[in-house]
């Protein structure tokens, strides 16, 4: 984290949200840890940050005080994304960020990823949905059983070539 790397974990419930804490506390958590033990954000500062990211990411929540566990999965994911964006990372790893959330939020997140990338942030986007990868990636690595089986770039990025890479190779296994 100190090197400017942020990691959005796959299992939101286990590795992402702090259920009973408010949306505000969830958003500032990472930045607060980065800032240090003896320099807490005042309530006003924290609320300002939270409001900023609630607006930016269009998070649907009753207030900044609402416990995060009462939000929908998509909005929870946005809060966690907001938490990492607040730390202004140079390199962002997203591990299945769109798993188990509604379609609208899914597209919101995909658009946001493209926007951030165009602004110069390096992003690794891990996903098991091919159309999602096609929409977001400029360079795609296909992995199977912990091994790299193919790399696709630019014009090679089509549904068909991805499927071929996934299905092909020396083994005839399907990626799940």
């Amino acid at each position, binding site marked *: 984290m100190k090197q400017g790397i942020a990691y959005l974990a796959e299992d939101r419930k286990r590795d992402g949200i702090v259920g009973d*804490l408010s949306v505000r506390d969830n958003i500032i958590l990472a930045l607060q840890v980065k800032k240090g033990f003896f320099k807490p954000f005042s309530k006003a500062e924290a609320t300002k940050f939270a409001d900023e990211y609630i607006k930016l990411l269009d998070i649907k929540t009753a207030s900044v005080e609402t416990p995060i566990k009462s939000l929908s999965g998509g909005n929870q994911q946005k809060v966690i994304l907001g938490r990492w964006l607040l730390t202004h990372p140079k390199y962002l790893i997203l591990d299945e960020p769109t798993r188990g959330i509604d379609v609208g939020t899914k597209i919101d997140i995909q658009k946001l990823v493209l926007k951030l990338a165009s602004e110069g942030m390096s992003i690794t986007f891990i996903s098991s949905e091919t159309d999602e990868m096609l929409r977001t990636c400029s360079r795609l690595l296909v992995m199977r059983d912990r091994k790299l089986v193919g790399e696709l770039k630019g014009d090679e990025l089509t549904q068909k070539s991805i499927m071929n890479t996934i299905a092909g190779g020396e083994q005839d296994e399907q990626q799940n």
Partner: protein
Amino acid sequence: MSNKTKTEGNIITALIRKQIFIPIAALLILSIFNLIVDPSFFKITLGHNSDGNPVLTGNLISIIDSGSELAILAIGMTLVTAASRGQDISVGATIAIAGSVILRVLCGTNSRPEELQAPIIVAFLVCCLVAMACGAFNGILVSVFKIQPMVATLILFTAGRSIAAWINNNELPVVKDKTFSIFGNYIPGIPIPTPFFIALACFVIIALVMKFTTLKLYVQSVGLNEQTSRLNGLNPAFIKFITYVILGLCVAVAGLIKVSRFSSINYSVVAKDIEMDAILAVAIGGNSLGGGKFKISASILGAYVIQFLTTTLYKFDVNSEALPAYKAVVVIALVVLSAPIVREKITALFKKFKSPEKAESKS
């Protein structure tokens, strides 16, 4: 605030939902009960003690006096509970150790010296170190070895009192110096008992710590979701450890008050069962014993609720042997009333009461 625009019913329901509501309600119920049965309960008189100092006496004074140790312990216990999702049951035994250390340093090898062998402040600092070391011992067992907090602290719970006795070679030292008894009794000229001031100082210190550090946020996130906290750059083990050390510090202060009250110590009786009362204070304060969100002010109030209850029962000449049984009945009532499921029901009931009234006023 937007409170003014809210209807009265909303304020009441919001109040019931507030965590601090439980201890305040408990205090109110106890006060009203006393007021009805015997209003003289609240009488405070100014008298003189054996040294000729002006002192206030009365049940309320005795509550804020003898509730101090419990309130101080409640601070640390709340933090430990929130971070490690378990309780420290060794505090009573650690108080015995802490008190024993103070007496040992003050009296030296002679158990009844005419003069103090060391300044009180030195004795207190040594006692702080020892108590924090005990806390650290528990903390390491819990955070590094990941032992259940109650099992980990069971070790000191069992061994603590004999260690305390061993520190003083099983003798019962008595401090004759009058200045030492200040901490547990009265400062000459001030009619309010000193333990209350010590407790007050502890509250102020912990409030400042909460304000100027991120301890609260860290402890809450570690208690709620250790894995997330780790990914956010926190060190859950260290934070748990720290809460045990803070509890150790609270124990040291409580130990000082305890031994100062009688200028001596009785290893097997001092602070007996106080760990259970401290855990109870946390529970009455509405804090989850399963860790996570916490409110220290509510725990402190909870501690005074327990003391209020004890004093009330004494007032009604309840046999000290039978006291725990009576206490248990009231505690069960309190805990059941404060259970979330019951509170939701009460809130719903209030809404029912309110809505027909509203309908009437509109028509």
